[in-house]
């Protein structure tokens, strides 16, 4: 042993002195800097999912979710909603064989409906129209608009993306251009109770941000619905787009083929058993694609309109959590196992195989 030391030291020592770049100063620089990150020693914590923890978590979630579910369900039940489907009833019986022809004709399409209020409705009562099987989200449709044109007067001639409703045949730009605006809904409703007219407030039915920022105050409709094909409603050319709230509402495209859009608000309470007469102009063509049309009167709760989904979802998840907590408890009580028992490791259960 002594000899080996002597031998190695005799080589090592002069070696270091003799070689042109002694390794001593290089050593320190070769060693990387120490930090917790480089050594992968950053602090971390990891909860161990012991049975007790899991059961407790499920219980807490269940306890939190079930009341939320119940309250939102109650809120949703509070909302009074009256739906009146009218698209077939508003066609004279004689014309029902060919509804499309009727709707495209010039015949008078006025129609009266009677709605009975089933329950007391607190103001404001929202009036919606609901269309069915109408694909506002169709790719050709949803893109057929020009936001620049809607916003700025200077961009009037900006009609890209609007084909085929971009310009009139003689090349004048249509404002607002595009299929969405062109197909604006044009049924109208007038409500009366006991022969007394109920005013429908059509102000503030569109989003404020839309009115203020997306539709210009100086942009006026022009060349709209002047073509050979008439789509939907006409627009008053003296009112700027920001005031055309029906248009603004319509142009917020719906995500689903069944959609409801706000028509206006009735600012009085409606009593139970009130009979409301509706005079409606049934102008809009949903007959070619057999779409339904509905008139909806609805109140709101603190959660918004009628929507049972949230309540049911909360209740389901909460219930599921309770159920899991219960079954885990049973499993835990019936078949307890020690935490971190190495005999459960796969290589301990069947030696050799992996």
């Amino acid at each position, binding site marked *: 042993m002594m000899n080996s030391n002597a031998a190695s030291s005799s080589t090592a020592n002069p070696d270091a002195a*003799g070689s042109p770049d002694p390794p001593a100063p290089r050593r320190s620089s*070769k060693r990387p800097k120490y930090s917790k990150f480089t050594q992968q020693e950053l602090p971390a914590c990891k909860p161990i999912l012991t049975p007790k923890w899991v059961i407790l978590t499920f219980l807490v979630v269940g306890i939190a979710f079930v009341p939320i579910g119940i309250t939102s369900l109650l809120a949703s039940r509070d909302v009074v909603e009256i739906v009146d489907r009218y698209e077939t009833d508003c066609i004279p019986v004689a014309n029902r064989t060919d509804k499309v022809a009727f709707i495209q004709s010039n015949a008078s399409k006025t129609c009266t409906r009677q709605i009975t209020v089933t329950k007391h409705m607190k103001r404001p009562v929202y009036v919606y129209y609901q269309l069915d099987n109408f*694909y506002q*989200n169709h790719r050709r449709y*949803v893109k057929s608009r020009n936001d620049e044109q809607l916003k700025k007067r200077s961009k009037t001639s900006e009609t890209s993306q609007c084909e085929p409703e971009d310009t009139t045949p003689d090349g004048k730009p249509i404002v607002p251009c595009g299929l969405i605006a062109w197909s604006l809904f044009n049924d109208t409703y007038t409500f009366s109770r006991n022969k007394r007219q109920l005013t429908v407030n059509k102000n503030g039915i569109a989003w404020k941000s839309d009115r203020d920022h997306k539709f210009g105050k100086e942009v006026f409709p022009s060349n709209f619905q002047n073509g050979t094909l008439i789509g939907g409603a006409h627009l008053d050319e003296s009112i700027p787009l920001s005031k055309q709230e029906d248009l603004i509402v319509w142009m917020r495209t719906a995500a689903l083929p069944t959609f409801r859009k706000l028509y206006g608000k009735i600012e009085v309470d409606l009593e139970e058993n009130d009979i409301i007469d509706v005079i409606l102009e049934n102008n809009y063509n949903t007959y070619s694609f057999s779409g339904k049309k509905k008139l909806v009167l609805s109140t709101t709760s603190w959660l918004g309109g009628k929507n049972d989904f949230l309540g049911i979802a909360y209740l389901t998840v909460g219930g599921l959590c309770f159920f899991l907590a219960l079954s885990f408890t049973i499993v835990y009580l019936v078949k307890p196992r020690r935490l971190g028992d190495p005999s459960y490791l796969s290589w301990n259960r069947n030696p050799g195989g992996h």
Partner: protein
Amino acid sequence: MKRYIYINDDETSQDLYCANRLSNRKYTLMNFLPKNLWEQFSRFMNQYFLLIACLQLWSLITPVNPASTWGPLIFIFAVSATKEAWDDYNRYLSDKKANEKEVWVVKQGIKKLIQSQDIRVGNIVWLRENDEVPCDLVLIGTSDPQGVCYVETAALDGETDLKTRLIPAACMGMDFELLHKIKGVIECPGPDKDIRRFDGNLRLLPPFIDNDVCPLTIKNTILQSCYLRNTEWACGVAVYTGNETKLGMTRGIPEPKLTAVDAMIDKLTGAIFVFQIVVVIVLGTAGNVWKDTEARKQWYVLYPQEFPWYELLVIPLRFELLCSIMIPISIKVSLDLVKSLYAKFIDWDYEMIDPETDTPSHATNTAISEDLAQVEYILTDKTGTLTENRMIFRRCCIGGIFYGNETGDALKDVGLLNAITSGSPDVIRFLTVMAVCNTVIPAKSKAGAILYKAQSQDEEALVHAAAQLHMVLVNKNASILEIKFNGSVLQYEILETLEFTSDRKRMSVVVKDCHSGNISLLSKGADEAILPYAHAGQQTRTFVEAVEQYSQLGLRTLCLAWREVEEDEYQEWSLMFKEASSTLIDREWRIAEVCQRLEHDLKVLGVTAIEDRLQDGVPETIETLRKAGINFWMLTGDKQNTAIQIALSCNFISPEPKGQLLSIDGKTEDEVCRSLERVLLTMRITTSEPKDVAFVVDGWALEIALKHYRKAFTELAILSRTAICCRVTPSQKAQLVELLKSCDYRTLAIGDGGNDVRMIQKADIGVGISGREGLQAARAADYSIGKFRFLKRLILVHGRYSYNRTAFLSQYSFYKSLLICFIQIFFSFISGLSGTSLFNSVSLMAYNVFYTSIPVLVSTIDKDLSEGTVMQHPQILFYCQAGRLLNPSTFAGWFGRSLFHAIVAFVISIHVYAYEKSEMEEVSMVALSGCIWLQAFVVALETK
């Protein structure tokens, strides 16, 4: 292709060969953009993304703004291109530095200082001490009167010892002035990359008398990138220049290695691509049908009556674009990024710094960390890898007497010391062979101590031991060698050196005693290379026993022998040797044949036993990794017995009752075949028993087995968890790696020396030990570590974490893309199959770039289990080996998860604003935030 080089001739060879201009650059300023783009686009993924991006320019079908694809695509391209450009610029700078270095070159008979890049083949280059050699030179003059100079070849082969280089005999004794005017022809082969070989001839032209052809070997050259040391000046003729030098030829970009994980990701990407095509075809067809039946009735969509020919394609292409996000564009970049981080973690690791030399571990290849966790076979070298490669002379047997058996150290054996003082001729001769028969260079340090520079650790150990036993090698001066023995100085003239080759397995020197004028041959070598050539009368039994005994102790043995040579015999042989040395074809073989003619009738003097200790922690490391399900093969050039002993001492194989060692041997095909079949039979029987069965095979039998019984041997390789292959050549090592790879095993080769380089390069993962045999292996390897025991940490900690993280990250990338894509697909069902995108371009970009790629980076520093746990239970690695975290079924799990999450998110988002009242933008925002929450939840859940 032979080269004829006219020395110092400015006209003839000017333009024949390239100038000494180095160029490692891949690109030039002009071709960078096209070439780089071309390279990037040769990858399938990139072609796919480019196609998608181009399709998006067609506004009729694009669901989102083209910028959402072009942006990331250009970004990714820019990143790779910048990296390439930066690397190339650095290469350019280093080339420029080398090219513009000034060197002294003789031009038109005058020594001039010119730039290195202007050196031409045939020029005479002058170097001073500590100069770097600018190109491959044939030495023609040095400051040393004996014509010797010393070079450091560390940059070439990593060996740090100084090597002697000689000027050819023809140039011997030429003076300074004459060297300027020298004319001649060098005949040599065309450029190659063998740095250990140069077979040339030199013939000086008439004014310089000597008309003989003078042989040139690698000994007469100094190669590019070496340094001139301990020599005042040297000059040489440029033979290979520029990129044609030996170094330039060896340079080259190694083939990129593909990890199992990468291959799996590619496969899964392919599967997703197929899925995507199916979705596109189904939805596209359905969309077209819906358009024809339903959309015509939807007057407000205003479909034109007439449509162009491509109308049928529009909807499918729209869906293709909608679904293109299924394959995440960023996956390659983010994986590259985290992989280089893993590599950095290896470089930074404090626990993998060699405490002796303070060398940190280094990951040269940053792309294959996760493969470390999937290694199934480790092929390891023995010397220097398992052992320290620090040789210590322990025992010897001289003339039948064993020394050092009692004390365990022959140097302290009283018997031996007495024998020396009493001047026993056998012992003296034995020591003389130890001190003389080697290529060790003694050098005096400033302090006056003698230090030995040796290429072979064994030789160094022997010379040291001889010195301890009062036979001190003092000086070696070209051919004169001085030895101090008990105060008197003995001088020998070395007439010839018969070098060691791995085929001959012995080396000899022919020396002339300057005092008595007797010529003798001194040999040392492996037992089977010496004992058969013992002269007829000698009993070699005791030596065979000694070798046996020593190798059972795990010691390395060498036999020493000598014989007297008559003057005439030497003269005759010397001529043959000269002739053989100057042949250009098969020189090595010819020399070996000639050497054989002298090396016979040897008087065997004795056997030396050298100990090579095991490195610290080797048995533990092997045991731990064995528990982790990794199989070990030992491939060594050493003897069978030594190898088995080392294997036993480091837990490689178990001793008898528990383990069983089967050996495959035989000299002929039949014998090997029978032996192989026998072993195979035993192996098949014992696979069911919990017994460690290993097989041993030597190089010869292996050669036959690989050639003729490959199938049987392959089966054996699959059955056997442990194998010891002894006496194998570097190429056989590489062949074994190939064999295991062909059976679809992940292999890791670990070694430390030049003979391991091929196996390291062949294996899926090459690990080099930056040890005492130089840095050659460490340089060729993907990872270099200081000690064998770091392998445990490299595999269990770094490999495993990398694998887990990559597995998570890659599948997560697909998960988040699929999640958003499924929502798009669901939405298309309620939007009339027209290919409307629910999300706008900005949300999609933000989702991909911001929300999903940054939080997930946390996972790159995630540890699922602590390092200690993994080290304690190496079985955990089974999971990674079997690829349990990334395979089609886990991927299916992630796929299902994204489908489920997409359904949940979609249902909630369309119902949360009472179904009918949902607006596009609201739904899109709710769904997007749902996705963001869900994926964040997944990240939080999956990181531990």
